[in-house]
């Protein structure tokens, strides 16, 4: 299952026509203690590059952008009670939401893991 990354520090796992989206280890470390995650609603249409969720750290609110367009099929409701999962397991249990992939072509231009690591090294 390929994993892609955005330069806004979201990750996306694509499996068939379903994609799971979250924020990266680097992003959670930059944000610090996360106290609230505002997720989209199942059935919402998200658009590539547009705000799809909000993470609130103690200090500030930060937007999370959809790396791909599609309809939200599932949200990680565990985050409502345990927003800290985004800190402890950002790229696994702390996933945000799933979408139906509308246009696979939108994945072009996203980074693979090696490219993202290089991107981080040059920040």
């Amino acid at each position: 299952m390929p994993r892609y990354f955005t330069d806004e520090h979201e990750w996306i796992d694509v499996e068939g026509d379903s994609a799971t989206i979250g924020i990266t280890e680097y992003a959670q470390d930059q944000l610090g203690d996360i106290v609230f995650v505002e997720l989209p609603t199942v059935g919402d249409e998200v658009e590539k590059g547009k705000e799809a969720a909000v993470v609130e750290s103690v200090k500030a609110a930060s937007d999370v952008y959809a790396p791909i367009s599609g309809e939200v099929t599932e949200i990680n409701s565990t985050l409502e009670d345990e927003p800290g999962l985004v800190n402890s397991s950002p790229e696994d249990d702390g996933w945000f939401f799933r979408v139906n992939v509308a246009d696979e072509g939108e994945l072009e231009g996203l980074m693979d893991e090696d490219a993202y690591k290089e991107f981080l090294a040059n920040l």
Partner: protein
Amino acid sequence: MSDDDTPEEQPLGTLPLDAWHRGHGARMVPFAGYEMPIQYEGIVAEHEWTRQSASLFDVSHMGQLSISGENAAAELEKLVPGAVTSLGEGRMRYSLLLTEAGGIIDDLMITNAGPHIALVVNGAVKWDDIAHLREHLPDEITLTHYEDQALLALQGPKAAEVLDALVPGAGELTFMRARSFDWDGTPLWIARAGYTGEDGFEISVHADHAEKLADALTADDRVKPAGLGARDSLRLEAGLPLYGHDLTTEIDPVSAGLGFALSKKRRETGGWMGHQACAVKLGDGCASTRVGLLVEGRMPAREGAPVYAGDELVGKVTSGGFSPTLQRPIAMAYVGAEYAAEGTALEIEVRNKRLPAKVSPMPFVPHRYYRGS
């Protein structure tokens, strides 16, 4: 993902402990014109450590000033609403620099330091404060800016025992008292004060000795360094207003709920800048006032969020965040005076959602100042 806290574009200064902070793993951010530590291991951990033990904050960005000369106290009294001439030696007072219209230029600490009057002002506006003081104080009053002094704040319930072990006698100070100490030949000016709501001290030390003092304080297992992030969440829980956010030149002390800083006698005698404007507010009441809000749910309401009573826009949040102690969002807001009563149900709009909130007394977390046994 994007952080909406965009740093200001300006050349940044470095403070005496810059290398020390970096060596201790601090994340540095631009604040008040300097690179400052926002956090070390994490804001919540540092916040909780301060409430349980003791934390060392670097507040060297703040302005340390003094005024001296004949009638210095009386001349300063013309610019602040608090009594200065009657302030006993070694005693401190919270006060305000005001415009003629009663707007708050800055909030500050005034101490009768014996030969001079010491002032500690906010870092972000210290140059404006200096200009204001210089403009309005007579030429024969000397204004000194101690740019070579660092300022460290040791805050938390264990601060007194830690500091007293290092600097014998420091623990005998009570809240809002200050004096000079000698620490193995290094002069320290220590005040029992702070801005976290906890017992604690602010220690002024020459920049050359700041690292040595920070090392000595953190060598004690009860002390860890803490950053500006925890300082902000602590002061919000303590219900203390932050200049530039909860206090500005658009806000007067009466609306800000700082009536205690307008000394009773001086309300009557006047003779200080802003007196007439404040007297009108004291007589007629204020259109809006600063309140605390307990927000339901977990979504924090930040600075700038509008406050509603039903469909009516009645105010605006000036500070808001998540309280680690209470495990819920809290905020300070200015609301119409008729909505300021404790328990009033209001709503805060955050990203097109209405969050229920209730007017709450402040502090949100009780102060633990040491006023003597």
